[in-house]
């Protein structure tokens, strides 16, 4: 009995009882497809979330102003802390984990163009900050060092802010009013997309002006020096965010004369850590586990079908033994038959699962969905890993489902064939 003949026998068995075969294979096919689909979906979800978090800035830590925590100072004497350019320079000079650092100023204010007036999130930025955000210019030019040095009144407009504020008429060279002050539009940002991590408005809705201009026009009245609304830091290594935080906090704490471990005095926030705190793997693991369970239940269906088959074919097995088959020939035959059926169900399942993944990932299907919704819709990632996982589970299912019927078949008494009438 060669493997090929066993597979042919398996096919005959399936064709002989098409309804039973379909019902039996259903669990196996569905389970396999589900394993592949959920595994691929999980991989896509991971990528989607990472992208959505990275849109605020890749490998970024944001540092906001805080106050000395009660652990270190009584509440009535709470000291509020602000960052200055000196902090930026110190960190730039000393922090080894830091690739770039930049200050940012932010304020919500009235912006106006023609008849349109909006309340907008206006940011004071410098070139390093733009690099940390990782946003490119769609047309015109970005804010450069010279703009900062000369406190120019120029503005770069976010993708959606352009549509909402400038409408169809406005563009590069238009003049807008920010809090009553005229600014010339020098550039328009590329679309960033939905951010899962943001401070204030999304980048697409922001207006960017040179940091120095922002600080001069809209100073913080609480203090008499030029203070920054936030510091943006990009670390060298995504995996060393925690180390980078400690290092940077220690450097800043020195000037502010606060404890280097006071997280309330120097609050830091990083999208990377937020992403890590989402139990994606665990969630996905549970989903895949459920799919594997379905696959196992499919295996039980196959097991019962093969046990039926052994019962029905006692006379055949007896005859095969009588004409010279050894017990291990019979074991082999039933084992291969089960494997053939499991393999067939698995192949169909892999085809359906992969087909579903490829369909959902297809650009033609996705292009029908509005951009904003597409940003947060995972593109399932068909991976070899998913197929290997499904195949691995299937082999185990096939082994377990094949073992008992094959063993039963080989235990049949060859004399049976003379008695069964």
């Amino acid at each position, binding site marked *: 009995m060669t493997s090929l003949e066993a597979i042919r026998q398996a096919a005959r068995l399936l064709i002989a009882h098409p309804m039973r075969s379909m019902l039996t294979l259903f669990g196996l096919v569905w389970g396999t497809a589900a394993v592949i689909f959920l595994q691929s979906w999980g991989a896509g979800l991971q990528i989607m979330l990472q992208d959505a978090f990275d849109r605020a800035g890749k490998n970024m830590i944001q540092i906001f102003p805080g106050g000395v925590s009660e652990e270190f100072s009584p509440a009535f004497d709470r000291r509020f802390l602000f960052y200055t350019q000196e902090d930026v320079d110190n960190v730039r000079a000393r922090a080894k984990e830091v690739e770039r650092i930049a200050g940012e100023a932010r304020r919500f204010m009235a912006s106006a163009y023609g008849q349109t007036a909006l309340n907008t999130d206006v940011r004071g930025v410098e070139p390093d900050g733009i690099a940390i955000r990782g946003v490119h210019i769609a047309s015109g030019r970005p804010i450069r060092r010279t703009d900062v040095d000369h406190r120019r009144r120029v503005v770069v407009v976010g993708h959606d802010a352009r549509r909402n504020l400038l409408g169809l008429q406005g563009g590069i060279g238009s003049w807008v009013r920010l809090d009553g002050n005229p600014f010339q539009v020098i550039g328009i940002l590329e679309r960033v997309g939905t951010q899962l991590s943001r401070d204030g408005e999304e980048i697409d809705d922001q207006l960017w002006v040179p940091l120095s201009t922002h600080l001069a026009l809209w100073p913080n009245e609480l203090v008499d020096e030029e203070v920054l609304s936030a510091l943006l830091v990009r670390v060298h290594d995504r995996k060393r965010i925690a180390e980078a935080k400690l290092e940077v906090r220690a450097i800043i704490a020195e000037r502010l004369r606060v404890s280097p471990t006071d997280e309330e005095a120097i609050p830091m926030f990083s999208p990377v850590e937020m992403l890590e705190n989402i139990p994606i793997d665990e969630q996905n693991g549970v989903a895949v586990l459920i799919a594997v369970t379905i696959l196992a239940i499919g295996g039980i269906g196959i097991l019962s079908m093969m046990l039926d088959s052994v019962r029905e074919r006692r006379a055949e097995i007896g005859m095969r*033994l009588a004409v*010279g088959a050894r017990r291990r020939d019979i074991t082999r035959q039933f084992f291969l038959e089960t494997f053939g059926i499991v393999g067939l169900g698995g192949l169909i399942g892999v085809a359906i699962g992969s087909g579903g993944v490829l369909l959902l990932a297809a650009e033609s299907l996705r292009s029908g969905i509005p951009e904003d919704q597409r940003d947060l819709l995972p593109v399932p990632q068909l991976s070899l890993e998913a197929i290997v996982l499904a195949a691995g589970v299937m082999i185990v299912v096939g082994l377990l489902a094949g073992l008992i019927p094959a063993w039963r078949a080989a235990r049949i008494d060859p004399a049976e064939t003379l008695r069964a009438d």
Partner: protein
Amino acid sequence: MSAAIALEAVHKHYETGHADVHALRGIDLVIERGEWVSIMGPSGSGKTTLLEILGCLSQPSSGRVRLGDVALEGANSDALAAIRGREIGFVFQAFNLLPRLTLEENVALPLLYQRVPRAERRERAIEALRRVQLDHRAEHRPAEASGGERQRAAIARALVNRPSLILADEPTGNLDTVRGQEILGLMEEIHQAGATLVIVTHDPGIGAQAPRCLKIQDGELVADDRRPR
């Protein structure tokens, strides 16, 4: 030259759920090479059990069995399977053809377990079918053949491994008289070609056609009639 089969004080017990069945109670029997023997007896007499032991399908509870030069005591199931595959051809009352195989594939089945290459299997199956005048139906399935043709195909299957011993269990039991006589005629031809033939039957008419007729009752041989031909 040794006998084809020799049984010495063969007993067979069955343990069923409730009772200990003593199916064979001390059988001594020698069948020479080239003999044609019929075994007759009412149902429950032990004739099927005797056929199982002759066909190496089961081992006796006690006593000794020799097949040609080979003593079967202590042979394991693989050794018995090898003997069945090489030396013995079975013909069953219910034909036991596999419905989804063609007649040729059915006939070739014993060769599969002898590891005979595919081309030779085919050739020998056709040759065996020719001996039973069924080579023109090689590609048909059992359902497309008549009862007589099915039993002829089953006989071809018993012949395909060129066995020295052919065992038939009620070979005409499922056939009408005319077809039954046809099958018996065929068996006689096979016997004349040199094979040892043992037929189990409860039909006295068929039993009487054999040159030697054994009668079994309650697990014991009660008659051993030989008639000269």
